[in-house]
């Protein structure tokens, strides 16, 4: 990343201060949450606006991690997200590839069906998905949840791959054919590696959607609390019998940390993935 040095002038200093003050509104809740996670429950209630804990302690993290079972929820979130990413990347890259490279019967139909159903809300399809999963004995299982999050939808990832492969020169594929590479080898060894940035964007977008998914994991884990993901565990924790403000904040910090770290390292892919929605 290149760093350009911009001179501080009166006008941009004023703008910066203005934006920074507004920015504080955006990060204050996070600062408060971190501060509360290091306080005792009594201190949270009594300390008013003081953000610095008297004697910071990680007790709340221990309570959230062990007693409130966020260790399980955390692992579940990771496994569910990893599974969803795997399914989405595989099926979307395969489909995007053939949709971009070949003409075949049903191509138009497939594309237009996907475009028409692009915006279908989860609320509309959830009951039949749960019904189907129930019949296939996938309800209350991890595989069932992963499929519910990854097997349908994700039209934008298919389109992203299609767009990318559509722009790669056909000569690459032809060179592969001349060298005697099979269909799978051309895809796996030549084309897919070229699509690295698209794959990175797809991974990030799927990570965000599955890590933050709520409705499906909620419904899929009703009778199996062992499979709860972080957001579902968070709600159970806040509506539970014991009131533990510090523990809730610690759990919140634990849930935000992985995705915040991912953002720091892969900022460009987050931005590209989101900006992709308006560019297409």
């Amino acid at each position, binding site marked *: 990343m290149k760093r350009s040095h911009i001179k501080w002038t009166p006008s*941009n200093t004023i703008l910066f201060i203005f934006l920074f003050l507004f920015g504080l509104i955006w990060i204050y*809740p996070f600062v408060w949450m971190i501060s*509360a996670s290091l306080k005792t429950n009594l201190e949270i209630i009594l300390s008013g606006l003081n953000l610095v804990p008297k004697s910071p302690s990680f007790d709340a993290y221990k309570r959230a991690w062990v007693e409130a079972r966020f260790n399980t929820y955390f692992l579940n979130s990771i496994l569910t997200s990893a599974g969803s990413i795997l*399914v989405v990347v595989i099926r979307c890259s395969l489909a995007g590839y053939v949709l971009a490279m070949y003409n075949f019967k049903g191509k138009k139909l497939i594309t237009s069906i996907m475009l028409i*159903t692009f*915006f279908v809300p*989860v609320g509309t*399809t959830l009951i039949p998905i749960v019904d189907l999963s*129930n019949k296939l004995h996938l309800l209350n299982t991890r595989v069932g949840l992963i499929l519910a999050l990854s097997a349908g939808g994700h039209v934008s990832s298919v389109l992203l791959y299609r767009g990318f492969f559509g722009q790669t020169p056909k000569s690459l594929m032809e060179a592969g054919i001349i060298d005697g590479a099979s269909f799978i080898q051309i895809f796996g060894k030549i084309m897919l590696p070229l699509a690295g940035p698209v794959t990175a964007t797809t991974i990030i977008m799927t990570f965000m959607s599955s890590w933050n998914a709520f409705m499906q994991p909620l419904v899929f884990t009703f009778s199996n609390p062992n499979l709860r993901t972080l957001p579902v565990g968070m709600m159970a924790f806040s509506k539970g019998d014991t009131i533990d403000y510090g523990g809730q904040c610690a759990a919140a910090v634990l849930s*935000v940390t992985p995705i915040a770290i991912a953002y720091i390292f892969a900022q460009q892919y987050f931005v590209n993935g989101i900006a992709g929605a308006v560019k297409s």
Partner: protein
Amino acid sequence: MKQKRARTPYFWIYLFLLPTLVGYSMYTLWPIIRTVQFSLTSMRGFGSKVRFVGLSNYVQLFQDELFINSLLVTLKFMLLVVPARFLISLLFALALNWKKCQSKTLLRTFFFLPVLTTSAIIGVVFILILDPTFGPISVILSKLGYVDLARIPLLGNRSTVLATAGAIWVWKWMGNSLIYWLASLQSIPDELYEAAKIDGANSLQSFRYVAAPLLVPFAFIILVLSISDAIRVFNLMLTLTNGGPYFATETVELFIYRHAFQATTQRMGYASAAASVFAMFFSVIIILQSVVKRFVKKEV
């Protein structure tokens, strides 16, 4: 130029499409058909006896005050939050797009942090932040002298709850629209601004006459995306208010969820009818948008 190559490898093509075709059919297409089918039955839970009841769920739905209420709440919420998210994000984007703006990445990260955070977590944390006894918002209000206002439970009061939830929603999603706007603004070539400058335009004029017309198509996409987010607000509401107090924030998706999955009132057929109406309501808005968009494009 069309080359004659080896014949099209149909076997591989359909094999590559198979996972998406099967997955999409099972988890998107078939469920849409099933929802309509369920909506014509008396289905309560899974495995319960099902009777065909025709359109009676729909008739009942439109006589159900709580369903009408949920449509109105959704619509009100949308009208409240979409313009706010749209305008605030545009202003911040214009500021961050300014060439001389300092620390863009830092500021963008500030605004983007809530977008990364799960709605369920935001819901839980804001219940604490808005707590009328110890939450920082109420402490600040009472320090400023608004003692009465500080004691109002913003989330427990019918007259304040929707606006409060709306503010939190705008706070959460603003950074998303900000990225949209920045991408749109960056698609405008610098030369155009420079040409305007040479012609003597000030920055307001160059926004009005150079950037604004080029932003119109983007603005519509951004609007559609925000509207579709706003209509589908579920996660935040479920954790923040659970539709309360007394249904003041029960959006359509919460209504569907309550009838489909909350054990005491489980009526899946009825919920499916609501889900079908919701999908229709949703498509009407999306279609309306694209019609308006086409119309505007002609005008520009």
